[in-house]
C-alpha cells in the first residue's frame, strides 16, 4: 500500500475564515471568562472578608447547640461541636483557596519548565524527562498523594509537597506537547533564524503562546487539589483540626451522611461552585489566549 501521507503535503488553505468579530473581541466580552472570574472573585472576596462576614468564630464550640439545622441564628446550622457552619464555610474558603492556588504553583512552574525544555530541545533530554514523567504517570494521582501524605504525615505542608511531587507531571506533558507544536510554527522558526538564542526563543516567543493550555489545566487542577484534600480528610489524613476547611468539613459530615445529609452538601456546594468558576475561567482562557483554537 502506498503511503502518500508523508510525501504529500498541502499548502494550507489559502486562508481560513477569520470573522472579524472573533479577532478583536476584548476579554470582557468573553462570557465564560467573565462569569468564571465573577464567581471566583466572589469566592476570594468572601474568603478575604471572612473575619468581617462570619457571624461567629469558626472554631468556637458550643456543645449545647450542636447539630442544629439552619436557623436564624445559624443560617447553615451547626456542626457536631456546635460550631457555626456558615462561619466555618467562609473561613474554610481561605484555607482551601490558599491550598488550591499555592499547591498549583510549584508543579505549574516545575512542570512547565521541564516540559518546555523537553519539547524544545528534544533528544536525550526529552527522553529522560519523559520517562520520568511516564513513571509518575503510571501511578494514579490519588494513590501517590495519599501514600506521600502518609509518609510525610498529615498537615498542610505535606499536602503541598505531595501534590508538588506528583502533579508537575501533567503540566510537563501538556507544555511539552504544545511546545513541540509551537516549535514548528513559522514565527518560532523566524525567531530562530533571526539569530535569537534558545532562552529567548523559549521565553519570549514560545512561552507566552503555550502557557495558556497550562493555565487552563491549572484551573481544573485547583479543583482537583481541593478534592485531594477532601479525600485525605475522608481517610483521616487531612488538614489539622480545628482549622475550618471544606475538606475536613465534608469529612466530618461523613458520619452524618445518612441522617444530616446536607452537612456534607454545604461545603460540597462550595467546592462545586469554585470548581465551576475555575473551569469557566479555564474555558474562557482557552478561547481568549488561543484565538486560532476552537473550544
Amino acid at each position: 500500500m502506498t503511503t502518500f501521507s508523508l510525501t504529500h503535503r498541502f499548502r494550507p488553505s489559502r486562508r481560513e475564515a477569520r470573522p472579524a468579530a472573533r479577532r478583536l473581541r476584548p476579554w470582557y466580552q468573553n462570557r465564560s471568562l467573565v462569569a468564571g472570574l465573577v464567581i471566583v472573585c466572589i469566592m476570594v472576596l468572601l474568603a478575604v472578608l471572612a473575619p468581617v462576614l462570619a457571624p461567629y468564630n469558626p472554631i468556637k464550640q458550643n456543645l449545647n447547640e450542636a447539630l442544629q439545622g439552619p436557623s436564624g441564628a445559624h443560617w447553615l446550622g451547626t456542626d457536631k461541636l456546635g460550631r457555626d457552619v456558615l462561619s466555618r464555610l467562609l473561613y474554610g474558603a481561605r484555607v482551601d483557596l490558599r491550598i488550591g492556588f499555592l499547591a498549583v504553583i510549584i508543579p505549574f512552574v516545575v512542570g512547565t519548565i521541564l516540559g518546555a525544555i523537553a519539547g524544545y530541545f528534544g533528544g536525550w533530554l526529552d527522553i529522560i524527562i519523559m520517562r520520568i514523567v511516564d513513571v509518575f504517570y503510571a501511578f494514579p494521582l490519588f494513590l501517590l498523594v495519599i501514600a506521600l501524605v502518609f509518609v510525610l504525615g498529615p498537615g498542610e505542608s505535606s499536602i503541598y509537597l505531595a501534590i508538588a511531587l506528583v502533579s508537575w507531571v501533567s503540566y510537563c506533558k501538556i507544555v511539552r506537547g504544545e511546545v513541540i507544536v509551537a516549535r514548528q510554527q513559522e514565527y518560532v522558526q523566524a525567531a530562530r533564524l533571526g539569530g535569537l538564542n534558545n532562552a529567548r526563543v523559549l521565553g519570549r516567543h514560545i512561552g507566552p503562546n503555550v502557557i495558556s493550555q497550562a493555565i487552563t489545566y491549572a484551573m481544573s487542577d485547583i479543583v482537583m487539589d481541593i478534592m485531594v484534600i477532601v479525600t485525605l480528610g475522608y481517610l483521616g489524613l487531612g488538614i489539622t483540626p480545628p482549622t475550618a476547611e471544606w475538606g475536613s468539613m465534608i469529612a466530618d459530615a461523613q458520619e452524618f451522611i445518612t441522617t444530616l445529609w446536607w452537612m456534607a452538601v454545604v461545603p460540597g456546594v462550595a467546592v462545586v461552585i469554585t470548581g465551576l468558576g475555575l473551569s469557566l475561567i479555564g474555558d474562557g482562557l482557552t478561547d481568549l489566549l488561543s484565538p486560532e483554537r476552537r473550544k
Partner: protein
Amino acid sequence: MSVVALSRTVEPLLSVQHLTIGIPSSGGGHATLVRDVSFEVGPGVRYGLVGESGSGKSMTLKAIAGLLPRGVEVLEGEIHFDGDDVLTMSPHERRRIMGPRMAMIFQEPMTALNPTTRVGKQIAEGPRRHLGLSKADAQELAVDMIRRTGIPDPARRARAYPHELSGGLRQRIMIAMALSCKPALVLCDEPTTALDVTVQDQVLRLLAQLCDDMGSALTFVTHDLAVVSQTCSRLSVMYAGRIMEEGNVREVYEAPQHPYTEALFQSAPDFDDPGRRLAPIPGLPPSLTDPPPGCPFAPRCQYAIESCSTGSKPLVEVRHRHLSACDLADQIFGGTR
C-alpha cells in the same frame, strides 16, 4: 427593482433571488456576509462565482446546499432548485435532494473525506441511500466511478483510506462521490486551490468532462480568474458579499463593466501577458458589520465620485446579458444598454 428580468430560453435549474446571509446577533449590529445576491443557473450550464477572500462566495454556495455553519443564517431571499424552494424544505426533503439532484465538492480534499472510512464505501453511501442499491451494487458503482475519474486500479483504490491517497487522487474521489448519483447540479467550492498546477489541470478537465457526460450543471466558486475562465461560461464577480458584475465569461474578461472587476484583472498576473505591470488595489475590503453606504468598492475605486457613497447600487444590465452594479459603468466603460 434590482434585478432586470433576463430573457431566458430555458427554465433555470437554480435560481437565487435576493439572498442575504448574516449572523444574527441579539445586541444588534449583526454582520451581513452576503447581501442581496441574485443569479440563475440553467441546466448544464457551468457558472462561476469569483471574488477575493471573504467576499461571501462560499457562504452563497453553502446556503444553496443547506450547509451554512452554525450561527450563520439566511436572512432574506429565496433559493429555488428545480422549481422547489430549498429554504423552506424540511431537513428530510432537503436530504432527499442532496446527492441525487445536487452535489457538492469541497476545497480541501485533505479534510473533506471521512478519515476513518474507506473511500469506496464513502462513494457508495450516496447511491445506496438514494438509488436503493444493494451494498455490492453500490460498491461496484463506486469502483466504476473511480475508474471514470481515470484512477488506475480502481478496485484497489476503493479500499484505500483517504490518507493513503494523494491530494489529486482524493479530489478525484470527491468528484466521483459527487457525481455518483448523476446530480443535476454540482456545487464546487474551490476544488483545485490545494492542488498543484499540473494536477489542477487534470482535475478541471475531468470535472468538466464528467459534468458534460452526465449533463450536470456546475456552480463553481474560485478566487482564480484564470480557473473560471477555463471552466465556466458565465460568471459573477463578488465583492464584500455582493455581486458586482455578472456576464458571460468571455465578455467580462474582454470588457469588464465594473471598476472592481477591472482592478481585479489588473492586479492578477496574466500568463499570456507577462509584460504588463501589476496594479494592486489600494485599501482594504470594508467591514462586514459596518459596511459603508453606497457602493462597497467606492472607498477603493479610482473612479469614485460622491454619489458612489450613497444609495443602493442595484445590478443592472449594461449590455446584453451583462450586468454591472456600477452606476458609472456607462461613463467609464461606455457600455450600451
